[in-house]
């Protein structure tokens, strides 16, 4: 057991835990997006960026080490996170009013939490295709934020990946193994949709099942369950 401070609060840290895990265990919310419980963190979105000794690092990948002094809610850090979210909004085609995931979307929920009324960057309106060729799921590339949660979590019983990153840089997209995806079970299709933070993986033939007002982030901001830890 070691000790670190996050925004001045002393936090007990079990050996080997990341800063994000230590913060959560101590009732401090650090926003994450590409990180997902049970999956190996990759630090691809940088929304969880914190400052340790003047250096910026991803809280989801950085292991907490004895004596670390972590800044989490400094105004410039929060603004940097907000700008990352805004960049994610402008670089894809995020049409919330038409999206099946609206209200359950983590990107949208973070934008609500950070009160993003309009992004400061110009919209890119990239030309991306919708792939509905698989029997159980639709791949909506317009909404993909390259978090790779699906790549990391959805695998066949013998450990083969169904979702795979293709190409590099701006042309990068998440493709599927055509044969493996055609064998996807309902259960795995549901898991894939749930693991996707945005509306990029959708189950076919179902949608808009939960009415507005009862969806995950309709009433309470993302991270509320961790915030409430503090007051308890």
């Amino acid at each position, binding site marked *: 057991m070691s000790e670190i401070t996050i925004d001045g609060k002393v936090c007990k840290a079990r050996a080997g835990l990341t800063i994000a895990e230590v913060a959560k265990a101590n009732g401090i919310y650090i926003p994450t997006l590409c990180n997902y419980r049970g999956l190996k963190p990759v630090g691809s979105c940088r929304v969880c960026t914190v400052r340790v000794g003047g250096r910026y690092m991803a809280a989801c990948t950085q292991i907490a080490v004895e004596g670390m002094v972590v800044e989490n809610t400094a105004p410039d850090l929060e603004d940097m996170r907000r700008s990352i979210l805004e960049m994610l909004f402008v670089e894809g085609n995020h049409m*919330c009013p038409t999206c099946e995931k609206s209200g359950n979307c983590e990107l949208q929920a973070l*934008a*609500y939490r950070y009160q993003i*009324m*309009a992004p400061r960057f110009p919209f890119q*309106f990239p*030309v991306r295709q919708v792939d509905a060729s698989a029997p159980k799921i639709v791949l909506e590339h317009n909404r993909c934020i390259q978090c790779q949660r699906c790549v990391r979590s959805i695998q066949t019983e013998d450990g083969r990946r169904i979702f795979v990153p293709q190409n590099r840089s701006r042309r990068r997209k998440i493709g599927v193994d055509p044969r493996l995806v055609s064998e996807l079970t309902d259960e795995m299709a549901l898991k894939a949709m749930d693991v996707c933070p945005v509306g990029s993986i959708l189950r076919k033939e179902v949608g808009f099942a939960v009415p*507005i007002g009862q969806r995950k982030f309709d009433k309470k901001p993302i991270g509320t369950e961790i915030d409430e830890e503090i007051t308890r």
Partner: protein
Amino acid sequence: MSKPVIATASLAGCFGCHMSILDIDERILKLIELVEFNKSPIDDIKTFTKPVDLGIIEGGCCNSENVEVLRSFRKNCRILVSLGECAIMGGLPAMRNGIPVKECLEEAYLNSLSVAPEDKIIPNDEELPIVLDKVYPCHEVVKVDYFLPGCPPSADIIWEALTAIVEGRPLNLTYDMIKFD
């Protein structure tokens, strides 16, 4: 002191945001006491007749007329507000942004069903506004001061923003007011 003057316009939108303005219910009586409406579809005044304090824009810019109206709003209004997703990010009309304009027009006027199939043309009268290459958010055409998201924005966020701006106090937005759908 004279009442603050408000103007509104619907550009490439569906008028849903204007419906949401009317959705403030009986508060509309108080609104009439608080402000005076100028150019707006609500009172059907077509041109600006005096300087306006607050301009409210619904919808993005999809043609030359939208751009002209938006620029006249910027010129005549002290404060300009983008109301709703279409004004802020193009919204549903912007779903055509990945498709060339030629293909859009052909799909709408040449390849679609028609009651006069032998007579299909793409409208091209000089009276008609020219369709832009894509749909633009308002703040990429002129400077916009405030943004109220939602599809449509709730009556409550509209009311809160209107009264805050008119009274010159900071906006007090609660979590359930900011929604993108």
